[in-house]
């Protein structure tokens, strides 16, 4: 039985992947025209994009590493979207999660073994991030405050709080030109996945995506969430505790973003500072919507986006083009992919012609 359903899943995923692939091809054509008008060779640009994003093991690692935080912030958008919420404030949860993790790490290191402190700081980041988005969920549920605005506002507030604390009461006087909290011990820092130069944040992100997929598609919580997203009134009538599910979903989403912040602190910066707020949260919104809120598709889309960002440098360096070149391509590509949802499901023709015994 397992083999059969697996085959079915693979087949469904395969046919679902056809429109986006066609869309990417269309985007390449449009972008080539854009380049040709200015006398720039598209083949050179695409060659460099491939080289920088996926041309070698080094480039793959570069792309995957850049994808890690985006996956987690995209999860924040995707989980809450299952209930019909549009949360655009993962950035705020990431920033405060990072700050919480840095403080927890400083408090725990020394009297807990390194592994304990690591677990503690990651948990702290997730809890702080979760509470932050759950706050928006509570405002929505108990006061009717629209979560799209509140999460955006909360993001700006979170960044202000981070900057205030990091440049004021929590500043390490030794952090000269990049005001930060006191640094974490070296042995509390999160290292790299053996055999790679990718830090463990990527592993956490992939696991989080898989867990999230299972949660949404294979549990009663996920069922309740999807039901609320489909029709909140009906969900309420059928006895689903809407408030509890909503708060839980917001908390989980925020926890994913907060974890991203904790990883940034524990694997990259070694302290909390203003470099936490670089827009991962906003990129995550895009990734989540392109992946149509599917947690597994988020992995692929995030790596693709990480690859485009990684290759931007190669295109700039080798062709002396501005950084915005690849942003234009990203814009065209995502518009095409989104438009391709219109043909999603209409490409069954060739399959229909074939005998259908496999289905």
């Amino acid at each position, binding site marked *: 039985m397992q083999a059969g359903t697996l085959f079915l899943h693979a087949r469904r995923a395969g046919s679902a992947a056809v429109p986006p692939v066609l869309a990417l091809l269309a985007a390449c054509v449009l972008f080539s025209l854009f380049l040709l008008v200015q006398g720039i060779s598209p083949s050179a640009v695409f060659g460099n994009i491939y080289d920088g994003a996926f041309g070698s093991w080094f480039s793959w690692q570069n792309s995957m590493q850049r994808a890690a935080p985006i996956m987690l912030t995209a999860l924040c958008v995707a989980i809450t979207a299952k209930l019909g919420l549009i949360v655009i404030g993962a950035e705020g949860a990431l920033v405060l999660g990072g700050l919480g993790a840095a403080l927890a790490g400083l408090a725990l290191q020394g009297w807990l073994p390194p592994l304990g402190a690591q677990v503690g700081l990651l948990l702290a980041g997730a809890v702080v991030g979760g509470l932050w988005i759950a706050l928006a969920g509570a405002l929505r549920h108990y006061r009717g405050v629209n979560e799209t605005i509140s999460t955006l506002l909360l993001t700006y507030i979170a960044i202000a709080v981070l900057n205030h604390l990091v440049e004021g009461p929590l500043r390490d006087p030794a952090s000269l030109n990049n005001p930060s909290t006191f640094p974490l011990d070296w042995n509390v820092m999160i290292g790299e996945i053996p055999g790679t130069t990718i830090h463990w944040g990527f592993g956490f992100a992939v696991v989080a995506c898989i867990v999230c997929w299972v949660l949404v598609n294979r549990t009663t919580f996920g069922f309740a969430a999807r039901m609320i997203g489909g029709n909140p009134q009906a969900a309420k009538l059928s006895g689903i505790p809407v408030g509890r599910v909503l708060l839980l979903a917001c908390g989980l989403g925020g926890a994913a973003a907060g974890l991203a912040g904790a990883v940034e602190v524990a694997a990259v910066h070694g302290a909390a500072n*203003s470099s936490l707020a670089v827009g991962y949260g906003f990129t995550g919104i895009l990734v989540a919507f392109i992946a149509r809120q599917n947690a597994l598709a988020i992995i692929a889309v995030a790596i693709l986006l990480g690859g485009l960002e990684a290759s931007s*440098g190669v295109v700039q360096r080798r062709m002396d083009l501005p950084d915005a070149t690849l942003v234009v391509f990203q814009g065209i590509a995502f518009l095409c992919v989104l438009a391709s949802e219109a043909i999603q499901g209409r490409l069954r023709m060739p399959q229909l012609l074939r005998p259908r015994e496999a289905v």
Partner: protein
Amino acid sequence: MSDKTNVSRRRFIQGMGVAGLGAAFPGIWLGKPARASELRVGFIYVGSRDDYGYNQSHAAGARALRDLPGVTVLEEENVPETIAVQRTMESMINLDDVNLVFPTSFGYYDPHVLRVAGRNSNILFRHCGGLYEEGSHPENAGSYFGYIDECQYLNGIVAGHMTRSKRLGFIAARAIPQVLRNINAFTMGARSVDPDIRVQVIYTGDWHLPVREAEATNGLADQGVDVITCHVDSPMVIAETCEARGVYVCGYHADQSRLAPNRYLIGAEWKWETPYKRIVEDVMAGETPSRFLRGGLAEGFVQPSAYGSMVGDGARRQADEVKEKMMQGDFVIFEGPLNDNQGNTVIAEGESHEQRDTWLEQMDWLVEGVRD
């Protein structure tokens, strides 16, 4: 938690990094066939390289290197101070055989440059503004910077002569040592003209926030401030708003006189081509460039803008005089007795801190006369 433990901790990380990664990835960086007698230089900017300010001043320095024979310049802009800059440096090294890297943003140094330098011991890194610590930082890392506070001191002298309200304004991005040093030098220059002068500081909170910078300029002008200078990434908006409000402006990073033709007094400009050329020439000659390369007016790392036509003779005379002394190396800005704006003595009578003193690069106080 004392500074000492931090340093030793950091030293340990470095050690671990070099030993561990060098062992894990032998030959990846060493195995590349070097392009014969060619120096490939990578520049990394935190913002857009046409920002009419900080990043552009570095890009101008990079352009000066392009004319040197045997040098190839590769540039990458808008690289945030995260894992992205580590990956960018490694990508330059791995994919484009860069052998000298100039990461130009303050926030790149610790931990990003230190970590990547530890992994790539045969590549040279020279960071703008970082404070190299002998022994604890990788040997292939180092830093350069310009004493632009000398120009800010001259700005202050001219501003001190031109102000009628005795109130000057300084729009600063964040309270970090290099910004505080500029605020202090500007204030001391102005107060050398008239000790009654006060300088009001406004922090915008980030390096590039045009609307808030314009609001700050207007807020200062409303308070009767009649000369404004700044330390933000792009002073474009501030210069234009000053012109519109009829207050004088002293420029920063580059010459903004075109933006405020009737109000631009003088400015503090970078000349990054000087340190860049010097570092590259050292490398081409087979020498290790200094790990602590600094210079001011005398060395040609910085220069003042030409005086605006409205600057009076008295101001020109005093500023020229001080500039001449600075060029001779006879002028010390940070000299005792000096109080901070809380009333504490920061430099005692008879003590002085010359420009190369790294104590100045850890400044966390504002001089008497500054209101922040």
